[in-house]
């Protein structure tokens, strides 16, 4: 067992340090028929916002060497629809669920967090294990506390703050000061690639093998930060995961490997969890 929110009153105690990253496990049940999700410490959902978002038009995906660029424009059906669809599914997934909330207007963040925290088991326990707050790539250190306060005003769940990869250390320090419970490293940089369908340029977040070295680098840069660090991105092998875990990560999140080889993602979680 690992503890990812040691300073939170209820903590975030997970059975495995291998999680599924936001954007690659859907809202939970998507991969259930292919792999046993119970080997993962938790699953982080696709983004959830207060109101539905239609997302970007096609093309959304461009392939790069050893990776791809993806831009969904935060497409999601809105928190009300997410809750009505998944509130009965999440408790049966076999793994804890962490809701990913992109940074938004503080009032909207509060209302979204409150709605999610309001879904409870018959025993009155929250169904969700934590909130992951995604910061935009251009977030400034002063922005962090208002967003964290907004989420905290809506729920008492542990809050993981997902930082932009390569972001300034001051951003991480401001998250610590604003009493984040853990830091996720992090949101990939923007990139451009050609759509394989129509050869149009697609601008979006970069995913693939290259991210591993960026995450590894951030782990070294953020040494000494007094919060659990969760390394998210670019893991394609057991060795990749172990390098990050021995370089200071308390846990890792697997992302695009799920698209390339879900069975390999499962095997990594299985081996690390032993």
């Amino acid at each position: 067992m690992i503890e990812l929110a040691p300073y939170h009153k209820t903590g975030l105690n997970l059975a495995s340090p291998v999680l599924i990253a936001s954007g690659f496990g859907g809202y939970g049940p998507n991969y259930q028929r292919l792999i046993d999700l119970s080997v993962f410490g938790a699953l982080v959902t696709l983004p959830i916002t207060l109101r539905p978002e239609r997302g970007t038009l096609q093309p959304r995906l461009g392939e790069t060497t050893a990776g791809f660029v993806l831009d969904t424009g935060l497409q999601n059906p809105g928190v009300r629809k997410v809750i009505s669809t998944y509130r009965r599914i999440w408790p049966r997934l076999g793994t804890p669920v962490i809701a990913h909330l992109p940074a938004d207007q503080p009032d909207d963040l509060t209302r979204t967090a409150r709605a999610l925290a309001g879904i409870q088991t018959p025993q009155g326990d929250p169904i969700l294990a934590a909130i992951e707050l995604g910061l935009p790539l251009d977030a400034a250190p002063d922005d962090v506390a208002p967003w964290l306060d907004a989420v905290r005003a809506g729920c008492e769940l542990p809050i993981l703050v997902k930082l932009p990869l390569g972001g300034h250390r001051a951003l991480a320090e401001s998250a610590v000061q604003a009493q984040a419970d853990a830091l996720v490293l992090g949101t990939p940089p923007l990139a451009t690639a050609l759509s394989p369908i129509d050869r149009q340029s697609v601008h979006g977040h970069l995913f693939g093998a290259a991210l591993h070295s960026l995450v590894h680098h951030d782990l070294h840069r953020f040494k000494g930060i007094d919060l659990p660090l969760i390394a998210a991105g670019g893991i394609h092998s057991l060795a990749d995961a172990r390098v990050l875990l021995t370089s200071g990560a308390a846990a890792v999140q697997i992302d695009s490997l799920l698209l390339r080889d879900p069975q390999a993602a499962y095997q990594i979680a299985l081996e690390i969890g032993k």
Partner: protein
Amino acid sequence: MQSTQLIITNREKLAPAWWRLTLTDPNESMSLQSGQFLLLRCADAFTCYLCRPIFPQPETNHDFTLLIRPDPDPGLAWLATRQVNDKLDVIGPFGQGFDLPNGVQNLLLVSDSQDMAPLPALMTQAVAMGLSVTMALGGRRATTLYPVAALPPVVEFQAATLDGSLGHHGPITDLLPDLLRWADRVCAVGSTHLYQTLRIQAEQIRFSLPADFAFGLVTDVPLPCGVGACLACVRHTQAGLRLACIDGPVFDLAMGW
């Protein structure tokens, strides 16, 4: 839905630019409907990171056939070099395929694309069910069309080529009005332009495009995950957002294109 390895047990040249692979599932556990897809993991993640959707056609409980041709896509180009006894890592099946319910009598299969892989198997299935089948294929020139010699004699074949080298001289959509009067089911694989024209012409002939009449397989969005997890394949339709990997890739054209 599963991860498995299919073995290439035969590689047959149908025409200068067409091969047919026979794929065997040693576990005999995969059940596939025409129009559903598998995700193929290409060996080299450096040049081809994402899995490629392929549309094998069920032949027996454990055999599938797959049409291939030269393709600029690195993943499909890799597939085109596979030989007998090579193994293919696949995941699936995914999505909604073509359906041939009871009551259908006149089936029109139409394509303006070389990526018309699901249609031959649908043709075989329809012939076995005793349906009247017309296959209408359009392309730039005769050599880009699925080889006529591979069609059974009971199937009516209509061709249209832009250079006039086979059949009607012009686009395949020129032939649609007569064919749409005859058909009571249309299954199409091709471009968005084909689907839009199908819709417009069907509305002119039948006054409206009824549901459950014309179906198209989307080829203009990527299908990287197959399970609706990544949202890369979303289509904005008149009926709202639809995921091609779960709600499709075969869609009722009455839904709005």
